[in-house]
């Protein structure tokens, strides 16, 4: 476990508000994908974001990291308004997202993918980048992160050879390499078998235990129920309910939404 001690500062205060999303509205043409959503995440929190397909979960997180432009509303990170900041500034200010649809740099190895993200200080601007060549510290950090998510054995392989489950974990390692204040994980367990999913869910829990605030979109409700203390449920772009995991998952309205999707909830597992 000493590996993680090197990667994260522990003892983070858990009482401060880290992220506030207020009255967020995201529309695509005539379609309202996210409708007047308000959420608050505290520092050090691990929050599950669930809901049926098309509920607006990914759209909401994409708006938070700056991939989608909201029509109205406000997003604040650590007290500063980031609603109009471009996505690269948000990444620099502490938002790291691992996407549902993986997009590794195809011509780089997993190690290079993560090393690049770890070199945030060195890619600050072209001049700094031009006069910096050393990569050893970033590579060490990248290797540790690949080890943390369990794909260090393919660190030097061609990413095009890797199955989806590996690429999902690569995305997660790359997002973590930014040392984000807030880590947004969009279905990191999809494409993994149950054993791998359990292992990665444990890792997510462990990362959170070291003070990292995390929001987790996940359809694997068994793992969500196991590791997440608080859940927000989205449906049709709106917050249906939120609260402690056990309470939310036993809520009949949440069941109704999921039964409509032909899904079952094993909240008790």
């Amino acid at each position, binding site marked *: 476990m000493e590996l993680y001690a090197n990667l994260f500062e522990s003892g983070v205060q858990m009482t401060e508000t880290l992220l506030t999303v207020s009255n967020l509205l995201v529309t695509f043409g005539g379609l309202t994908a996210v409708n007047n959503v308000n959420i608050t995440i505290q520092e050090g929190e691990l929050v599950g974001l669930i809901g049926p397909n098309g509920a607006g979960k990914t759209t909401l997180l994409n708006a938070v990291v700056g991939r989608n432009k909201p029509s109205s509303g406000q997003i604040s990170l650590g007290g500063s308004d980031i609603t109009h900041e471009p996505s690269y500034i948000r990444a620099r200010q502490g938002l790291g997202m691992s996407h549902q649809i993986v*997009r590794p*740099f195809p*011509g780089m190895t997993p190690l*290079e993918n993560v090393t690049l993200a770890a070199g945030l200080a060195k890619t600050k601007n072209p001049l700094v980048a*031009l006069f*910096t*060549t050393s990569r050893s510290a970033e590579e060490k950090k990248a290797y540790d992160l690949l080890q943390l998510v369990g794909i260090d054995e393919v660190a030097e392989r061609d990413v095009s050879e890797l199955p989806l489950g590996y690429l999902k974990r690569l995305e997660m390692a790359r997002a973590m*390499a930014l040392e984000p204040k807030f880590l947004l994980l969009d279905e990191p367990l999809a494409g993994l078998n149950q054993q791998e999913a359990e292992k990665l869910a444990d890792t997510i829990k462990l990362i959170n235990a070291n003070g990292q605030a995390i929001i987790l979109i996940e359809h694997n409700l068994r793992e969500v129920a196991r590791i997440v203390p608080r859940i927000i449920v989205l449906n049709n772009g709106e917050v249906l309910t939120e609260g402690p995991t056990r309470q939310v998952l036993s809520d009949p309205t949440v069941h109704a939404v999921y039964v409509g999707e032909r899904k079952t909830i094993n909240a008790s597992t």
Partner: protein
Amino acid sequence: MEYEISLLTVMGINIVLALSLNIITGFCGQISLGHAAFYGTGAYCAALATTQWGMSFWSGGLLAMVVAAIFGFFVGFASLRVRDDFLAITTMGVGFLFLGVVRQQDALGGEMGIAGVPGSGLGEFGFMILVLATAVLVIAFSLYIKRSWLGFAFDAIAQDQDTSRTVGIDIARFKLAAFVLGTAIAGLAGSFYAHHVRFVGIDSFGFIESISILAMVVVGGIGSIWGVVVVAAVLSVLPLWLQFVADYQLLIYGALLFSVMQFNQGGLDGIVRQLVRKWRAND
């Protein structure tokens, strides 16, 4: 001997020129079909500086770099708004714009160009050494960029701009940096050209020249330093050695570009890599 000196000088100029485009298109993935405009800007600056403004060969060369880089900076802005095929068309337009403007300016000699550009003052041999030394420096600089975090970020932008943003890269600034570096070096190549040929005219900086430079980069292997150097060197000397190549230069460049795009997009570099891989597999 004079012939060989001239040959090596032309080769050196083309290596510098091809590597300058390789920074923009090869490293940073920004296609340019108008690179001859920056080459021409450098050549015209050096010609004007030394024939009319009383500047020396050295200060004229520096001015050529600075002016080409400023021009490149503004064209680089175009790359921030458009991508890929649209950028190709935009840069092609810049190339034509350059020709159109120069053709109408009496101060730039219009259709007649500027004659009587002085030599470098180093003698033919000394100038060849300077050009070849510059080529070596540009090769070294290209290798250095590839090793640096600038090259790392360029590589990321060339592969996926959206993902580059998610890892905190300000792609606008990095693209502008690629344009400024690449066009400054193209300007330097242009000043060498002006002092070598002792004349500048618009015919040397048209669309065909832009495509020729691009052919050197694409056939060598986009982003590959050694591939681009070898192809730039070979394509520079072939027309001088073989009359057939000189007569059918456009046809040959076209056929090379077509073949590379159809059969091996990695160019010379890609072919060599495949051969090495096969050779290792059979070993």
